[in-house]
């Protein structure tokens, strides 16, 4: 036990280190040369379409599945050779959050705490604490099989943070929750920032955007994009767009725009209403904000302006663009045959 406590105090700055990870299921390559690192206290979101290799990556990180090649280090310890030591640093919530059906909430947490080598005296206080954190106090004596989906999910999260591990891995923690519960879970994950490294995977993109410091977009087992949501927008799109409503001389509009900024161009011009105002989308690759320039120069050129809005691509657009780009990238050298569709992960 002493050794375990010593390890906890010596958590390095980089808690997760994955390099050149490869995992195949027969002929199917689920994870293909994946490398990334996670710093202490960072919250990282794993995004990707179904079968992209998110769950497989997480299972390898926990030491549940062995990788074909590559290495994973948790808190500086290799998972492959020191599985038991690394498992002490990990709190893991699998996909769909499996729970034994016939135990009570507090019994289950007690059992898990004992498995995670928590001393009895400390465990009792800690269970009260996590039940409070996860808003489960009223349900502590209820049977797991009869809990609602949201409550089960919170039991899973409570279990993951129970032993205060350095690394928390959660596979789709907000799946099947109602908006109110999503906010609770989001706040809960955000409250771990700075203390624990968290990796979450999700399909719900606003969730990732709201909680994560960094996003890894995975497709076909590879990282196709990574960075903070803002960085990703710039990287994937490389342009900003403005939506304006203007009235004036339509034909000369595009020419007038280039006098304002050389990079400005008209993407679309929508229908004009009866009062003469048209809706247009302008695109620019300029890094600075052109809003003020447009507001000054367009009226100076004889155009009337009544609305200007800078449109941000949502993470959803980034995700779609990044995953499409990675599919396109593999098309020239490899024809996608009907049998090449990615299978869902087999259940264990």
């Amino acid at each position, binding site marked *: 036990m002493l050794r375990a406590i010593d390890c906890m105090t010596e958590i390095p700055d980089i808690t997760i280190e994955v390099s050149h990870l490869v995992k195949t299921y027969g002929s199917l390559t689920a994870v293909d040369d994946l490398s990334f690192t996670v710093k202490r206290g960072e919250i990282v979101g794993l995004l990707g379409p179904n079968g992209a290799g998110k769950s497989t990556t997480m299972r390898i990180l926990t030491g549940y*599945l062995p990788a074909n090649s590559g290495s994973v280090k948790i808190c500086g310890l290799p998972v492959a050779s020191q599985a*038991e030591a690394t*498992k002490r640093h990990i709190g893991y919530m699998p996909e769909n959050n499996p729970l034994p059906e016939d135990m009570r909430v507090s019994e289950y947490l007690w059992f898990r705490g004992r*498995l995670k080598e928590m001393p009895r005296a400390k465990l009792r206080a800690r269970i009260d604490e996590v039940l409070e954190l996860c808003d489960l106090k009223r349900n502590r004596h209820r049977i797991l099989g009869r809990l609602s989906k949201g409550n089960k999910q919170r039991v899973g999260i409570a279990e993951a943070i129970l032993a205060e591990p350095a690394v928390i891995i959660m596979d789709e923690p907000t799946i099947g929750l109602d908006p109110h519960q999503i906010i609770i879970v989001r706040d809960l994950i955000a409250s771990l920032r700075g203390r624990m490294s968290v990796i979450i995977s999700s399909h719900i993109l606003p969730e990732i955007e709201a909680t994560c410091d960094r996003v890894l977009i995975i497709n076909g087992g590879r990282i196709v994009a990574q960075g903070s949501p803002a960085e990703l927008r710039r990287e994937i799109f490389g342009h900003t767009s403005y939506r304006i409503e203007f009235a004036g001389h339509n034909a000369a509009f595009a020419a007038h725009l280039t006098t304002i900024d050389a990079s400005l161009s008209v993407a679309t011009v929508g229908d004009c209403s009866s009062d003469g105002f048209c809706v247009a989308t302008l695109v620019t690759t300029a890094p600075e904000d052109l809003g003020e320039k447009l507001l000054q120069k367009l009226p100076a050129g004889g155009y009337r302006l009544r609305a200007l809005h800078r449109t941000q691509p949502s993470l959803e657009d980034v995700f779609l663009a990044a995953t499409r780009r990675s599919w396109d990238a593999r098309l020239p050298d490899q024809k996608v045959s009907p049998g090449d569709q990615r299978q869902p992960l087999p259940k264990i």
Partner: protein
Amino acid sequence: MRHYFTILSHEVRTLLYSSSTYIAAVLFLGVMGFVFAGILELYAKAPQETSPAVVFFQLFWFPVFFMVPLLTMKSFAEERRLGTLETLLTAPVSTTEVVLGKFSAAYLFYMLLWGSTLGFHYLLKVYARDARFLDPAPLIGGYLFIALSGLLFIALGILASALTRNQAVAGILCFTCLLGLIGGFSYLGELSALNAEGLQPIKNAVESLRIPAHMEDFTHGVIDTRQVFFYFTGAILTLLLSILGVEAKILNS
């Protein structure tokens, strides 16, 4: 091994919550009660040469066939179906601890149920008012045999459960293995093909693996170390295979 007792107590609790444990217990005590009553009737009609305890243990295989699958089929198959095996094995525990914990819990229940049949012999003693009816030697031998063979039988059940995610498949697989183990060697020993001169060693080996014959030896007070060795090594080997089975299932998934 520090998680062994945590897992053991969890498994005992799971078995106490499970309906199949109670089905096994009721069926077992019912069947054994009828068997015992039948034996007493037989002894009331005509004098017999052997002690009632010897006859009682001759039918040991019958409850084993349904009791062992009912007690063990849930252990790994259910965890795998629910997916809780993943959470269990991502805690800092080894597969060995998990397998041993589940095995010990099932074995504990198995022995508890057999132990409850001691009550039959006690009742006989009380109502017969004659100490000769409770001959302790065959009883000790018989229960020793049950305890030893139980190691192997329960280990087989755990192995069957470790190989599948379906409880029914695990149960039937376990039943088939037990049938092969208990009945198979007796059948093989009687094959005329083994009567040839050169095959005599094989015939001897098969004969010495006959489990009903072991039971006869034990209840007659013959405790052969070869048989003790057979059950111990058999159980250890089967448990090793179960550990490999659990881990191989992870590798191939």
